[in-house]
């Protein structure tokens, strides 16, 4: 089945002023880039997409994920994964614990095998029981990515996901994340400041300040 994330005629207001207005559909494996200066409403849009829009804002429009209207569904039932600029690994859980927290319930043996396999795939084999605080920045970013992917999301949101990594690591991690998104055929929305991110995403770009759509 081809997955699809559709934002239908969304308008968000802060008090009486209109902040943004979007109407977009993202196919599985496609990455929609959102650019714009701070205050242009990037994080407000992400909040709306995750169902966490604060009271001060008002929104009209609807969100469809694979033909299902999820506009009024609480965050934890939306199956939309989130990747922030910080890895935000839970400090009280091990590397494997962080990933297991995200995975659907199931047979324990099956779950641990899956975790080990996934860790090996990204070059982190054997680190299951490590304290995430003792990993390098790049390793933490990879664990955070595995955590989102193994939660089996139906779409993924990236909130300036690479901005805290140095340039070498940045390119590698970005390649890894984008490859995984395409491999899993997930619709993705990426908020970023960096032109090189949007170039690499190779998809549609929305510039929130000007509200003009351009194609990269």
């Amino acid at each position, binding site marked *: 089945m081809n997955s699809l994330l559709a934002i239908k005629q969304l308008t968000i207001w802060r008090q009486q002023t209109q902040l943004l207005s979007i109407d977009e559909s993202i196919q599985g494996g496609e990455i929609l880039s959102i650019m714009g200066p701070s205050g242009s409403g990037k994080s407000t849009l992400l909040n709306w997409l995750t169902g966490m829009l604060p009271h001060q804002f008002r929104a009209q429009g609807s969100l469809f994920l694979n033909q299902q209207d999820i506009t009024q569904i609480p965050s934890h039932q939306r199956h*939309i*994964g989130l990747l922030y600029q910080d890895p935000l690994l839970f400090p*009280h859980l*091990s590397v494997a614990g962080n990933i297991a927290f*995200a995975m659907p319930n199931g047979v324990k043996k099956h779950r641990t095998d899956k975790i080990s396999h996934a860790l090996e795939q990204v070059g982190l084999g054997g680190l299951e029981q490590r304290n995430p605080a003792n990993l390098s920045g790049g390793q933490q970013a990879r664990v955070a990515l595995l955590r*989102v992917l193994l*939660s089996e999301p139906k779409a993924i949101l990236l909130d300036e996901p690479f901005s805290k990594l140095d340039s070498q690591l940045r390119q590698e991690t970005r390649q890894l994340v984008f490859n995984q998104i395409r491999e899993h055929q997930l619709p993705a929305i990426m908020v970023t400041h960096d032109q090189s991110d949007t170039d690499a995403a190779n998809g549609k770009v929305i510039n929130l300040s000007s509200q003009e759509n351009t194609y990269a």
Partner: protein
Amino acid sequence: MIKSRDFFTQAVLLSPKLLMALLILPVLGGLVGVLLPAFGYIPALNKMSFSLEGFTALFNTPGFCQMVLLSISSALASTLLAFVITTLILACYFNSPWLYRIQRLLGPILVIPHAAAAIAISFLITPSGMISRLFSPWLTAWKTPPDWLLPHDSWGISMILGLTLKELPFLLLMALGALSQADLGAKLRAQHKIAMSLGYCPMTAFFKVVLPNLYPFLRLPLLAVLAYASANVEIPLILGPNAPPTLAVAIMHWFNDVDLTLRIKASAGAIIQLVLTVILLVSWWLLEKLTKRVSQTSIINGKRDYAGHLVMRFTHATTFILISCVVLSLAGLVLWSFAGYWRFPASLPDQFVTMHWHNALMQMHTSLINTLLIGFAATFIAIIFALFTLEAEQQRAQSLSRFASLVIYLPMLIPSIAFLFGLVWLQEQVNSQHALFNVIFSHLLFVVPYVFLSLASSYRRLDPRFANLAASLGATPASVFWRVKLPMLMSPICIAFALGLAISFSQYLPTLLNGGGRIDTITTEAVTLASGASRRVSSVYALMQMLLPALAFALAWFIPKLLNKYQHKA
């Protein structure tokens, strides 16, 4: 914010209202329960008409004016003294590592129950106390204890000393807490440096630049301290004058008198106590405005040094004396608890015995169990309420209303003597006869504000993205709360738990009144023993009072470390 409709979310969203009711009803009900008898309405004594006889009796009590004056002067003097010394210490050591060393030395006093602190100070200053022993006979030539009236002096000096020593670390901690807020602390320190580069001496720079911006953070703690000092019972009972005592102590005696008609006078007294505390708070506020008005011109008069060197020396000396007082009091307490025969001018006992500890420990197990049971029950409930209320705040994505925060701190600001008797009456009305339950409930009122205060900042500071992220991974709100937030907040929760225990351990009045005198805890026993009985047994109880909260804090520090190790054993 799209809310989830599961049971957990509903329960969480309901808990702030429940907490409000839990705090407002007893406090307001308690106030009503004092107000009615104050105006002569006591159905139990067949007095059903309103009159002012309680107030007439009160005003005709011999020494009434002295009681009121004593309450006012001791509260004002101790708060002012504690505030002045706090600012002097801050000014003197503002850029020195000694500031934090002093805080570390004085900090433990915070969790010492008032009763224990008062006992320790009374042993320091009595005629045969540590001070006169240390300076005799080589300096004073005393062979027998001097004939002075400390403690219990009629001026209330011992009492003021006790209150000051207890309030000072609290104010210092609040000031340092404000300074440790990243933006404020860095800004004030930079501005202090600018003032010094303009030629201001460090002391003047502190008073003209830092203090005006720091004071707003100290205002509420100061008012709380003032309200507490004006109505406290334990310290005046152990250190204050007896004839007449402070108003609060007199009220307590009248309430506990077998002559039930005295309750009318006592209730009238409780109302006067309330008015007195409010007057004190308003006076402080006026004093603050006045000081601000007066100092407006001197701040910008360009004078850069007000004998800063002398003031600094004075502060060094004061700080030294303060810390010596604390160390000596504690040392004295420990020595007394192990002392066999101890001649007067000798600084050390002739022999050391463990008998007092042995005997006391044999006798105290009932009160120890009560203390722990009440403490754990009250703190546990308080923690649950505080956590759920803070979680509700995040679920609704808006912070607690000003009214709600005020209500949470209500038991801290309203003198307990003014509403506890009413609460006892209220508990009698609803026929709640289980003494232990009544005590736990009354402790809860005093534990909640501290637990909430101590949890709120860490709970609100927790990066919200962790919760968002867990939710995006499919975790329900309940699962986010139990499996992400609580484990991440393990340290602050343990600290709040220890603080709650320390507050409960130290409660005297609620235990005595709401338990109807039937529930003994270490604290009530210590206060009883302090007046009379053996100084040695009394020391053991006072030390037990200090050891319990110390143990709680040690565990609060140790348990998260242990858990962390267990979680990451690989």
